[in-house]
């Protein structure tokens, strides 16, 4: 299967790989997927006092499209409010990366990774 230019670009030069301190109150961590299914994404966001995402990091176990989806996502969420970030749709990711139908699940996973990171952040704020 041929990969799109954008998938290759993100795969070869993944953006924002790494970790944020998961115990930091301003950091939300989302981990989705399962090793048995062949993909696990971990997305972390650092949220400023103004509710804007200041930083994002990821690590992904999965195929090239999964890695590209999560790399793209970290670029997209930075500078967005939590509300804006949670409105990101998998279809937008799939479109941007020109994912073929068999790879749509990678973008679905990316969407749930943001939602899960935001949820984790919100949970921390309640305590």
């Amino acid at each position, binding site marked *: 299967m041929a990969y799109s230019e954008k998938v290759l670009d993100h795969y070869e030069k993944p953006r924002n790989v790494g970790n944020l301190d998961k115990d930091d109150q301003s950091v939300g961590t989302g981990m989705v*997927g399962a090793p*048995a299914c062949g993909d*696990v994404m971990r997305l972390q966001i650092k949220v400023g006092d103004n509710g804007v995402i200041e930083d994002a990091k990821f690590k992904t176990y999965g195929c090239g499209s999964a890695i590209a989806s999560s790399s793209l996502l970290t670029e997209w969420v930075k500078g967005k409010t939590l509300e804006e970030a949670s409105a990101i749709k998998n279809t937008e990711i799939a479109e941007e990366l020109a994912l073929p139908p068999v790879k749509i699940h990678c973008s679905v996973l990316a969407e749930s990774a943001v939602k899960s990171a935001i949820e984790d952040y919100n949970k921390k704020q309640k305590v």
Partner: protein
Amino acid sequence: MNLPIYFDYSATTPVDPRVAEQMIQYLTQYFGNPASRSHQFGWDSEKAVEKARENVAALINANPKEIVWTSGATESNNLAIKGAAHFYQKKGKHIITSMTEHKAVLDTCRQLEREGFDITYLNPQSNGLIDLKELEAAVRDDTILVSIMHVNNEIGVITDIAAIGEMTRSHKVLFHVDAAQSAGKVPIDLATMKVDLMSFSAHKIYGPKGIGALYVRRKPRVRLEAQIHGGGHERGMRSGTLATHQIVGMGEAFRIAKEEMTTENQRIGKLRDKLLNALQDIEEMYINGDEKQRIAGNLNISFNFIEGESLMMALKDLAVSSGSACTSASLEPSYVLKAIGRNDELAHSSLRFTLGRFTTEEEVDYAIPLIRSNIEKLRDLSPLWEMFKEGIDLNSIQWDSH
């Protein structure tokens, strides 16, 4: 050295130039129908077909009369299993095979199940091989056929078919062997091995695609019900005008294999060992299939915490294959690796390197640092690797499966 480098000889092989040269004459010059008995064109083609039959028979120490031309190992497997099942069904309707067979065997067995046959699918041991005692224990009064492959296409392990043949013969059960991956790589002597039916393919041993053969034993005689009907070619077992050029190609490929197999195996084995030795110290790598009892050209490894397709993408200069689900339409990881007890993660993480006649040391030397550096790169990207390094038991985590 040309890129990408071909490390997928178990999928198919290039046609050896010596083979191609032989074939071409039978497309343009000697184009006659080998079944034409009334003129020189037919006689020339027939002679070439019979010469090829001798060459195929010689590699496996059989009688040329025991060779039936087919379109490939898929058809040979279909003809052997369905043909024997249909012919002998009055004696019984039970067939034994293994879970790691090629789809051409498994799907044929599924079809027979729909026709009312009863199939036992044996689970291999963790080294990929079937336990002979377990196989014997599965034989029943109504068992008519055992079908076990000689060399597995994914993990390259070699089954002791001589031992199975002794057992099946003593129980008066027919024994079919899919030898698509073993012919020309492992010695086969059908004068001593008690195999009744054996499937071959040309394109796995430097012959053309679309041609194969089925060995059908004459003493003791094995009967088959034809699956393709027509002009009664191949003693009625497989009708259809013989593809002279393809058959000539297969014959030449088998002739070369007989001559060069021993030296070729040594050379390829050394290259494979070089590749293996250079990767052996990588943490969390698992060799799939028995390490000793395997063909010279096969190396199947799982690199834990890396997904196979992404590794293949990183290794785009190397043409390899993976047991990862992402490479198949099914979204299921390799059923062979699952059957030998690898968990889903390790099955997803597997790469198969298969080396062959045209693999060079330079190619292996090029591949080694490329593989090593990309494993490191992808592990740096892998949350699972990070967790493993932190000592977290991945089984203790509640993953959401999707």
